[in-house]
């Protein structure tokens, strides 16, 4: 495959799901799921091909419309993008497989659920676009596409609580993207460019850059639902239908996190300071404690899992203080690679685990007719596979070995200790403890003996299997981390890590 053809893959990653979405919309309802799953498979295959090419040849760039930066828009894929793309591809494929039988159930098929497939495929395209786009304004459009399709999916059922949560989500998303766009406008005013690389070269010190980055950052923090800006997340994620919750929690919040990470290490590395890194870390730490604590107290499983997302997002933000440090030589800071890998791995592992968890809870809720924690008593006997999926996902969320979550937390902990920023360690451990609390509370209910056999509604086997596969994936990436880590290293921005003091030289 020549370079042009493999760079065209980047455009395919966006065009393919959109094509699938349009075809699905034009097809009669009964054929939509099949079209959707076929598109999902094709998109995942294209994602794998892209990752493979990037791993083999290094980063790829695709100039859309043939113009190229600064006038045109570029798509850009390096190791970091590919890792997120792959996660989206795998989770997306299995959620799609799960969604087909899910929406075939009569009581789940209310509201406008026939629109699930077009919306989800457009959302997928926008996620891929988020991970690929190298243009600040195009990223804004992608953010909006992502936000609108995510909200539309969240209100798919048409139930009033979902509608209220959806409106809250929509307004928060608009506020976040407007703050982001204000920042982008100021950047454009200052450096007359929108391409990430050109902007990065033009960043200077100054009030306008500080304001611009602050606005961009706060806008994206709202969209990532970092404590204390998580006000929209639990409602929106818990009132949505199971496959949608999985998509929202596992993938959508990751896209804005990815953007923060990308901007922090690649674009604004001249503006960041140790103090700003510590501040982001502090928000993350607060999120870990608060989100996990709130999750512990929820009695409804979906709310619990949604609050758990708030906590788990916090772990990803511990990456920032650990890579934003003053040093003279990379050799002096051997923990940088650990911190970087740990943060990204947390995002990936959480993606798999949270998707598995929401799907498993969806199976419980469908079988029992309620997602109350107390109504799952003794389900292990009747739904062993789903309980097992929930346990596997829980193991990864807690960070127990062997699991992706363990690798992530291990790396972050090691980085925290070796960098001397030991204060993050108790937070990570306390978070694990609280997470263990809520995970085992659910499992304890599921394992508890019942005097009477509960009458369960039959659940399609495919749904159980997909939840289990995603749960197993969260474990397997802990057993075998090598490929992901190698891919992550491809043209890692991080080989030239964030140097807050570099700005002083200018």
């Amino acid at each position: 495959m020549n370079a042009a053809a493999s760079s065209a893959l980047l455009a395919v990653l966006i065009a393919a799901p959109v094509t699938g979405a349009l075809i699905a919309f034009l097809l009669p309802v009964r054929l939509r799921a099949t079209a959707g799953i076929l598109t999902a498979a094709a998109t995942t295959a294209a994602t794998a091909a892209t990752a493979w090419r990037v791993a083999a040849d290094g980063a790829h760039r695709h100039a859309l419309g043939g113009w190229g930066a600064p006038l045109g828009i570029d798509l850009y894929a390096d190791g970091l993008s590919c890792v997120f793309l792959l996660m989206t591809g795998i989770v997306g494929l299995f959620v799609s497989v799960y969604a087909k039988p899910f929406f075939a159930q009569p009581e789940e098929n209310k509201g406008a659920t026939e629109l699930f497939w077009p919306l989800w495929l457009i959302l997928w395209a926008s996620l891929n676009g988020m991970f690929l786009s190298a243009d600040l304004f195009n990223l804004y459009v992608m953010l909006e596409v992502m936000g609108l399709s995510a909200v539309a999916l969240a209100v798919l059922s048409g139930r009033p609580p979902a509608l209220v949560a959806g409106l809250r989500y929509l307004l928060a998303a608009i506020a976040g993207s407007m703050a982001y766009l204000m920042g982008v406008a100021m950047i454009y005013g200052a450096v007359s460019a929108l391409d990430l690389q050109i902007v990065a070269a033009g960043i200077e010190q100054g009030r306008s850059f500080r304001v611009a980055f602050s606005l961009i950052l706060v806008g994206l923090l709202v969209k990532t639902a970092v404590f204390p800006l998580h006000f929209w997340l639990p409602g929106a994620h818990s009132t949505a239908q199971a496959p949608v919750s999985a998509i929202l929690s596992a993938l959508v919040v990751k896209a804005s996190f990815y953007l923060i990470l990308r901007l922090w290490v690649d674009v604004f590395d001249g503006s960041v300071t140790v103090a700003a890194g510590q501040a982001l870390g502090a928000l993350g730490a607060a999120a870990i404690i608060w989100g996990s604590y709130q999750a512990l107290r929820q009695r409804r499983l979906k709310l619990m899992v949604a609050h758990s997302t708030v906590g788990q997002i916090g772990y990803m933000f511990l990456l920032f203080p650990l890579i934003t440090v003053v040093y003279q030589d990379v050799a002096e800071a051997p923990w940088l690679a650990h911190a970087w890998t740990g943060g990204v791995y947390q995002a990936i592992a959480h993606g798999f685990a949270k998707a598995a968890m929401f799907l498993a809870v969806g199976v419980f809720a469908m079988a029992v007719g309620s997602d109350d924690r107390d109504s799952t008593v003794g389900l292990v006997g009747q739904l062993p596979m789903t309980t097992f999926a929930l346990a596997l996902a829980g193991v990864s969320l807690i960070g127990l070995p062997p699991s992706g979550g363990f690798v992530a937390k291990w790396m972050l902990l090691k980085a925290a200790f070796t960098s001397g920023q030991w204060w993050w360690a108790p937070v990570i451990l306390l978070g694990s403890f609280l997470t263990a609390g809520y995970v085992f509370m659910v499992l304890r209910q599921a394992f508890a003996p019942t005097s009477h056999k509960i009458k369960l509604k039959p659940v399609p086997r495919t749904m159980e299997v997909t939840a289990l596969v995603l749960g197993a994936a969260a474990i397997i990436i802990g057993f075998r981390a090598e490929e992901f880590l190698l891919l992550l290293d491809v043209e890692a921005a991080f080989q030239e890590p964030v140097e807050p003091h570099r700005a002083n030289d200018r």
Partner: protein
Amino acid sequence: MTLLDQVFDIVVCLLLLVLAWRTLSATHLYQSAIFFIAFGLTMALAWVRLAAPDVALAEAAIGAGLLGVLLVDSLRVFARPPETGRDSEPNKPESRDNDVTTSRRRPQFNSAVASVTAGAGCLFLAYVLVAAIHDLPDGGGLTAQAAENLSRSGVEHPVTAVLLNFRGFDTWLEVGVLFLAMLGIFCAGGLVGFSETENPDPPGPLLSWLIRGLAPVMILTAAYLLWLGKLAPGGAFQAGILLAAVGILLRLAGIPLMDRVPRTVIKLGLTFGFGTFLVFGIIALLADKAFLEYPSEWAGEVILLVEAAAAISIGFTAFAFFAYLNSRDQSTGNGDTAGQPRETNPSQ
């Protein structure tokens, strides 16, 4: 720049600020809406002062026109008491003590403290923002690059060149956002389908006749605007919204459009612009070019084609926004599809 110009600009800006403030602080929704429309008109003045005719047109057509119509229509809905008797589903099944985010108990937040803090924070934020904006360099931009590549773009108007060619990807997505918003509105309605307007009293026969007569003229104007976009301000969005306006007027005149249109046509109409763009993009990919890259010799023609498709789709979608929100099924807004004829469902 003369002193008179400056005074004019300052007056416009002050007016903008006052109107925005009154819009948000007005106690009655109708007041709010009136101030907001006034704000939109003043904004149009600002666009003209800033030599942005394309933006002025787009804002007038889409921002003020379409959204204005939707807002006024919504005011009518909110003025009526809701039909809560139909509300068989409990409002908040999750409002248990545990579920803190959806609890109904009101927070006992001291609103005075909140207002003062928020006000002070806002003022300070505004100061920082204005200061930062003031620090921006005087000059720059991508004008030079755009001028350099204009001859290869296939059109003569630089804004159209950027929209349809240099950054056609953004525009494609933007047409996609319109489609997406329509899907979202379907989701919010819980029902996918159109029906007659609920407006009980159609305007008098004279007005109806006038509207019917006006419609072909407006469609012609839209076509002209579309073609004009190659050379001067105008183009797909403005033309599309004009088309939508035709539909809205006809609907207000009591001429049902959507519920007569076959489902397939509705589906095609919603996806036409988004899809045409995509087809050209894929053709370019298959021809071993970049996504959405046009053949340079036919760039103008391709752009006109794509623009026409986009305009039709934009017009159709914008009209569909109104028609769906305004339709009778939606206004009786039953989430359950039980008892609703699914024949009008365009997505089946």
